[in-house]
């Protein structure tokens, strides 16, 4: 009886524990290059997790998430350049604050619309930020971007060797933030609010007629989503060492969409899996051929045609098959 009752929990732990061990062991097992790739994957994972609160749970496809990610990254760069801040915790707090403000401003406009209109508006607004970063080069460094040095973590000065800092100290720091983000998002999507978002996704008219003020809920989801992207942007800045307009441009928003589709936006962990998989895919595709965009494009086409539910959809199918055959 008790076994039966705890079955879902045991089943979850059966894969969470090995994954946690693998993530904790990674820097000691694989080389720094692999660790950094994984690190990028985790950082993007946080952004896509936020993005998917809109796509997977609220039914809104944003083509402008680069705006909030980029806002997070540039906030860090500005804090370094103009306020001489070096503390990662202050970077995170500042980035979340700024991305919340921007996503609130943009969100108020965007959530009045749905579907293609919503997508186009998010894209257009994100391009405004990009052009600001691009044109006001005396403030933003233009295409050269702004340098972001290694930050202090929890008040402790960073290791002198940058590679060692990133692959160990910073890796574990990001892993901790990542874990907190996953837990927070998991609670949000399983809260009454998360249920209400899914109701809006499935049928907005009915949602309205059970007393849910849909625009307000969409706006809150939009801001939470933007905050996650902003946080990811802040974590990305020291890793990349540079905040450039590349992370504000709409093609990066497209990559975020790609990651969610690749992992499977119908599942909670799909976006994370997609972010890590995409990072590896892109890293190897770029190393493998100069026509890497072509390779990624092919993957996307195959994905949409053959695996519309992404990697996690495929995993679920396989698990179901194995269970049936037993």
């Amino acid at each position: 009886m008790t076994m039966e009752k705890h079955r879902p929990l045991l089943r979850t732990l059966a894969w969470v524990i090995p994954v946690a061990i693998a993530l904790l062991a990674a820097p000691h097992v694989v080389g720094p290059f692999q660790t950094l790739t994984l690190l990028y994957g985790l950082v993007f994972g946080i952004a896509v997790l936020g993005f998917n609160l809109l796509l997977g749970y609220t039914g809104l496809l944003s083509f402008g998430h680069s705006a909030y990610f980029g806002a997070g990254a540039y906030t860090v760069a500005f804090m370094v350049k103009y306020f001489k801040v070096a503390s990662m915790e202050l970077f995170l707090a500042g980035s979340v604050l700024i991305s919340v403000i921007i996503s609130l401003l943009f969100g108020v406009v965007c959530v009045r619309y749905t579907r293609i209109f919503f997508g186009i508006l998010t894209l257009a607004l994100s391009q405004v930020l990009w052009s600001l970063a691009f044109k006001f080069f005396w403030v933003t460094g233009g295409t050269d971007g702004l340098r972001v040095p290694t930050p202090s973590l929890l008040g402790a000065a960073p290791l002198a060797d940058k590679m060692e800092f990133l692959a160990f100290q910073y890796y574990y720091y990001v892993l901790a933030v990542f874990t907190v983000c996953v837990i927070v998002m998991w609670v949000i999507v399983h809260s009454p609010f998360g249920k209400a978002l899914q109701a809006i996704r499935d049928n907005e008219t009915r949602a309205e007629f059970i007393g849910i003020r849909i625009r307000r809920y969409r706006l809150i989801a939009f801001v939470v989503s933007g905050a996650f992207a902003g946080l990811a942007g802040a974590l990305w800045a020291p890793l990349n060492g540079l905040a450039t307009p590349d992370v504000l441009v709409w093609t990066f928003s497209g990559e975020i969409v790609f990651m969610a589709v690749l992992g499977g936006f119908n599942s909670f962990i799909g976006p994370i899996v997609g972010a890590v998989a995409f990072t590896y895919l892109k890293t190897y595709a770029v190393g493998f051929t100069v026509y890497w965009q072509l390779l990624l494009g092919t993957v996307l086409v195959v994905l949409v045609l053959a695996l519309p539910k992404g990697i996690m959809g495929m995993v679920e199918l396989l698990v179901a098959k194995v269970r049936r055959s037993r």
Partner: protein
Amino acid sequence: MSLLATQALAKAFGENRAVNSVDFTVKQGEVLALIGSNGAGKTTLVNLISGLYRPDSGSIVFEERDVTRQSSYGRIKAGIARSFQIVNLFDQLSCLDNVALSIFSREGKTLKLAALASRDRAVWDEAQGVLRQFGLDPKAAVPAGAISHGERKLLDVAVAYALRPKLLFLDEPTSGVSTREKAPIMDIVSAIVRSGGITVVIIEHDMDIVFRYSERIVVMHQGAILADGSPDEIRRNDEVTTTLIGTHVTGEPAFENGNHAGH
């Protein structure tokens, strides 16, 4: 005492006066049927009262408060709920979730981000109870998109009922359901609303259903009220029988709906 009263309520779509100066009252505790041929203005009237449309003129008074300018949200909070002619459910969510959402919303809990929905035992117990009342408890875990049409019609009513409204509009609760299934659905629905003391307005085309389950009948024709009376009075009313001949043939609602969708 009237629970709801509209005065000179009007709504036009272009040249089409869908609802033309209608005085419509609903008394506390009654089960009222709103009938009329396609395009008579029944659904438009309900859409005006529930707040989906804004009236061109006239007023709506609910519990002696003017709600004409109130948002649909405000009207739901005041106690007006409705089901839909074309089933409107949260298809990817389970039947239990569909009902639970109404309860979370009614209790003002849907803005909680930092609590797990599954921990709120009271809500789930109540939702389970509502499903049981509607005979849908075996389907609790099944997505609403995967149950039969008859069950979906019932669930649609259950979702509105779970809001514990004072006044419930049921827009064709048996449309698209086979004749054999209609009576069981109406038996369940009428038993529940009567035991809950809920005032109900049913829009229905099937005259057998109308005469069997309602206490008062309001007949609409071309945007206006043609007759209002007990089932016996309506049955004897020649004007009504002449106007409504042939309309209780089932499977029609496409026209009225299509008509509104364009506006």
